[in-house]
């Protein structure tokens, strides 16, 4: 830059070249601090919670995650109870798995229909309707499931399945209690549908028009085009979307806590009650003695670690496939 002559000529001031505005420097610092706050928050999140839960981790060792004896003590200062969170880990994983088994095929079908089969006139209203599911607060899902959906709609279905399939398939047998892993999983499926659909839809809409035209030119029917072009290309995106949905499902608290039944034992059928990791924290926290609180924070740490791993992997996969996680539902 030859700023020297011009600036001196105009304003009679010394050269601006090489000087740095202090306002600029301050501004940059301000934004850097704001940006790093995210790092600080995440780091302290890990630090304080692990620190708080440390006495329980040390007391239990690996049995914290491999034992299912959860027998909280009432001490203020030391660890007297037994804290094995396996039942809650199983509850979280099982409800999330049921949710995904139900939600993923439905999401793929919905996204496929919305992107490549829906008539123009109903495409937008349908998209809005699915996104609307994401705007419903989880406590409303809990309320609706607790007072209407599970006892009225799901209960007969569960009884039927347990009575027929349950007689020869393990984990599906009777007895059926109204609020159980399956009920929580189904409502959870409704809750993760919008995010999986949103990301899948995004990936599917990126299918190159030339490849679609090529498939049709070769004489493919619409389904064959979807099957061999759209689905084939979208596969990694679908995996990423599924894992994002999994992350959401693992962390979901209130709806699961209200519908999973609240048992501290591992149910040997999906129609028996259990408890999830987030659920046990939400339900027992307010009445917990100090040592119990420490154990609950420990459960939170385990949940945090699992969700972070799933989420990072999911975003990585979506990113690698050139997808982009967007949309209100995906935020």
């Amino acid at each position, binding site marked *: 830059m030859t700023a020297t002559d011009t600036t001196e000529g105009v304003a009679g001031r010394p050269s601006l070249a090489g000087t740095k505005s202090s306002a600029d420097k301050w501004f940059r610092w301000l*934004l850097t601090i704001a940006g790093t706050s995210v790092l600080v928050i995440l780091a302290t*999140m890990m630090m304080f919670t692990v620190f708080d839960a440390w006495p329980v981790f040390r007391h239990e060792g690996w049995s914290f995650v491999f034992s299912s004896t959860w027998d909280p003590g009432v001490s203020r200062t030391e660890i007297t109870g037994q804290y094995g969170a396996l039942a809650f880990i199983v509850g979280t994983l099982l409800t999330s798995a049921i949710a995904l088994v139900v939600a993923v095929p439905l999401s793929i079908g919905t996204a496929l229909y919305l992107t490549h089969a829906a008539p123009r006139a109903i495409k937008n209203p349908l998209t809005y309707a699915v996104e609307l599911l994401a705007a419903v607060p989880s406590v*409303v899902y809990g309320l609706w499931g607790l007072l209407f959906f599970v006892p009225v709609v799901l209960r007969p279905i569960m009884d039927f399945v347990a009575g027929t399939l349950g007689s020869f398939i393990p984990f599906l047998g009777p007895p059926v209690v109204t609020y159980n892993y399956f009920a929580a999983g189904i409502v959870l499926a409704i809750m993760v549908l919008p995010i999986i659909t949103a990301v899948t839809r995004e990936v599917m809409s990126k299918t190159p028009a030339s490849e679609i035209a090529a498939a049709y030119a070769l004489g493919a029917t619409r389904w064959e085009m979807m099957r061999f072009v759209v689905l084939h290309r979208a596969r990694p995106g679908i995996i990423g979307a599924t894992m994002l949905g999994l992350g959401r499902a693992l962390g979901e608290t209130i709806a699961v806590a209200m519908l999973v039944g609240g048992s501290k034992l591992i149910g040997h059928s999906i129609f028996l009650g259990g408890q999830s990791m987030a659920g046990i924290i939400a339900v027992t926290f307010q009445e917990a003695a100090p040592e119990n609180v420490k154990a609950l924070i420990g459960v939170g740490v385990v949940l945090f670690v699992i969700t972070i791993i799933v989420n990072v992997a999911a975003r990585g996969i979506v990113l690698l496939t050139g997808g982009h996680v967007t949309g209100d539902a995906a*935020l």
Partner: protein
Amino acid sequence: MSIDATPANAHPSLHTRSANAAKRKRKDRMMTGLLIFCVTLVLIPIALILYQVVQRGIGAMSWEFLSKVQPFAQRREGGGYLNGLFGTLYLLVIAVTVAVPLGIATATFIVEYKDSKLSPVIRFFTDVMSGVPSIFIGLYIYALLVQGRIGFSIGFSTLAGGLALSLLMLPIVARASEEVLRLVPDDLRNAAFGLGARRWQVVTKTVLPAASSGLITGSMLAVGRAAGETAPLLLTALGAFVVTPALVNAPQSALPLLIYNEARGPFDAAHARAWAGALELMLLVLILTIVARAVNRNHDMEQ
């Protein structure tokens, strides 16, 4: 497109439908039917949940519900969720005050200082943060501020609840803002630089105003998400039976907390209030979403 050489009649089967073609056609129709079945299955819960909340909610909604606090005993009829509505709005004001400036600043840093080595790191961890379970955010605020791990304690309080919600909103605001800021054309930045503006002037006087409606929309959506959160509030705001104006050392109530507590009980009167509360909460979220979209649409039309 140029199609070369091969004449169409080189392949007779294009004109004579084979038995296979009929089978494929049938499969195509069947799969389209299956897709429509999927969509229908997805639409059923949407219809059910909206219908139930509106129908049962309106039945229990009244002026009394909006203007009174809940009775101490859940089995008693009457009363309302004024304490919850007040608490939710109060918590949201705190959450917005913290999360919106911080989130937009974070996004600005990520987009406007791309040259910084920190920028991609912060972007990545913003993504990570958006995946943190909300209950864990509650545990963090509990360990840090309620329990007073850092030397002082603010107790179960509005401030603790508001901060928990703000941490929930922060990554949402940051990510939404980031997408909007990326859409601001570089021409605009270059023009401002060309007029001799400093970097901070370019950002505050050109880029942010240009993106303002998008930033508002993103923030509103985040508020909508925070308004419906229950889990972190259980561990930070705790819940209260009365309207609580205090900022610290006094538990605060919120609509989701009240719905959660009353839905779990066995009393019909409490359930009725919970449905009305659900309607109130969903209307609140709906209004925020509509305002957010309206802001965005107005802006789009201006351009």
